[in-house]
């Protein structure tokens, strides 16, 4: 393998890896506050892309993206308020099945609104054939956008959870719901907020990746599976581990192309998912005893 090809694969791997990581972080945020896996997470990513594409017909690109993120956050809040909030002490399994239902619902609504066509946002800078030369490899500027924006999301989120009162309240609810209530925090509001936050970052990721990965009504499903694999691989609930696991999966997929046919790419992710669920269900970076305390 030449050095140029190596860098080419490297960038492809990092790009997909960080996208998977963002989806996985969306899973983690909701998992941490509620203990459930929100299987509609991939649909949030799809909605972000689709809404931005529609808005972009009327508005300049940055406004269209901002609008898409806000609208998707609204959808996230509505999903939580209509389907989750009013449940009285629901079982985790019941809530998970509800999110699967919601994901089907959103997908079908998207099919009716946008049809089966494959769409995409325009490249943020340049077009399909413009490239940046990095160490001899030709990289699309959009790839740098994806990596840049997703990195900013990851860093901003960790600052949010560490230094803002709102973020601390969400962590408090994750750590101990009763104690959080006794500090005057309303845990239900924190759950709504976690759905909005997951929807928002999912939508933003959906927008930046749209020019290279394209968006269609069911593109959320595949992403959800990859994101779920990454979330499990890293250890549920741990966002930094999700980034590491995301990059690992992205790079594995990218470099596998040089050995096995492209068609086997998804097989790799699913094999990893199965293997990890059988052998190390608490994830590569998770601790077994900690996982044992959780409901799953």
């Amino acid at each position, binding site marked *: 393998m030449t050095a140029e090809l190596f860098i080419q694969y490297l960038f492809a791997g990092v790009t997909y890896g960080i996208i998977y990581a963002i989806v996985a972080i969306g899973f983690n945020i909701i998992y941490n506050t509620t203990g459930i896996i929100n299987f509609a997470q991939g649909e949030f990513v799809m909605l972000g892309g689709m809404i931005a594409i529609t808005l972009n017909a009327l508005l300049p690109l940055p406004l269209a993206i901002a609008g898409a993120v806000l609208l998707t956050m609204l959808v996230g809040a509505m999903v939580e308020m209509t389907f989750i909030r009013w449940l009285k002490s629901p079982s985790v399994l019941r809530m998970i099945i509800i999110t699967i239902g919601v994901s089907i619902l959103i997908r079908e609504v998207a099919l009716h609104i946008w049809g089966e066509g494959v769409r995409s946002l325009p490249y943020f800078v340049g077009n399909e054939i413009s490239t940046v030369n990095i160490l001899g490899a030709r990289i699309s500027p959009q790839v740098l956008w994806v990596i840049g924006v997703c990195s900013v999301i990851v860093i901003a989120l960790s600052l949010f959870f560490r230094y803002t009162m709102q973020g601390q309240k969400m962590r408090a609810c994750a750590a101990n719901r009763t104690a959080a209530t006794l*500090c005057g925090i309303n845990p239900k509001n924190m759950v709504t907020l976690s759905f909005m936050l997951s929807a928002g970052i999912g939508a933003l990721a959906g927008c930046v990746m749209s020019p290279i990965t394209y968006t269609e009504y069911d593109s959320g499903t595949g992403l959800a599976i990859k994101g779920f694999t990454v979330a499990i691989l890293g250890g549920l609930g741990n966002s930094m581990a999700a980034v590491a696991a995301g990059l690992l999966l992205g790079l594995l997929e990218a470099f596998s192309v040089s050995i096995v046919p492209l068609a086997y790419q998804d097989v790799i992710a699913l094999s990893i998912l199965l293997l990890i669920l059988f052998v190390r269900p608490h994830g590569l970076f998770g601790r077994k005893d900690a996982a044992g305390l959780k409901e799953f």
Partner: protein
Amino acid sequence: MLKVRNLESGYGKLRVLKRISLHVNPGEIVTLIGANGAGKTTLLATISGLIPARAGEIILRDREITRVKAEKIVELGCSLVPEGRQVFATMTVRENLVLGGYIQHKKGNREFLRELDYIYELFPVLAERQNQLAGTLSGGEQQMLAMGRALMAKPALIMLDEPSTGLAPLIVKNIFAIISKMREAGNTVLLIEQNAKAALKIADRGYVLETGKIILEGPAEALLANRDVQRAYLGRDLARP
């Protein structure tokens, strides 16, 4: 400060509290003693809104709070230090305390973090460990953290649920000394204890709870001297008269 009248509460079909009445005056330490299963924890959980009251009323500072939500009751000035400490294990000591002050922050008190100095003065060990994760503290330190976190809300009334459970005698002594200090600083305390002797020693008044009913009440010294209390809760084997 706090008035409870004919309070009934329980879980499912189980009726735990049977028409309980008690009151706490401002500046007092009132203790409620009783054996396991008497309903002590249920009483505090009902007052703090964690479980709903079935009947009766709870009045905090002339305001009825019987049906008020738990997170709102904290805002009205009544904080609970729950049984088993319940610290935010994955967060640092300082973060735990800051969250305790969230209510003050919400009320627009921009200087709510000043309260930290008072807490660190009361519990010097928390100052030493402020950047450590709460889950890594010892049991006694976690109890102090839970108390400090409740105090950060500047509550008019602080309710403590069995602060001495599972702690070494020396640490229990320390905790009770701090509760006395809290009264000197102007806090009103409702203390629930199995360790009846230690609790009655620092309290002004006391109630004895048995199977969901209050069977005795009075000044702490009187209860300490009471033969029934001595026999049942202070482990003193007295010859029957």
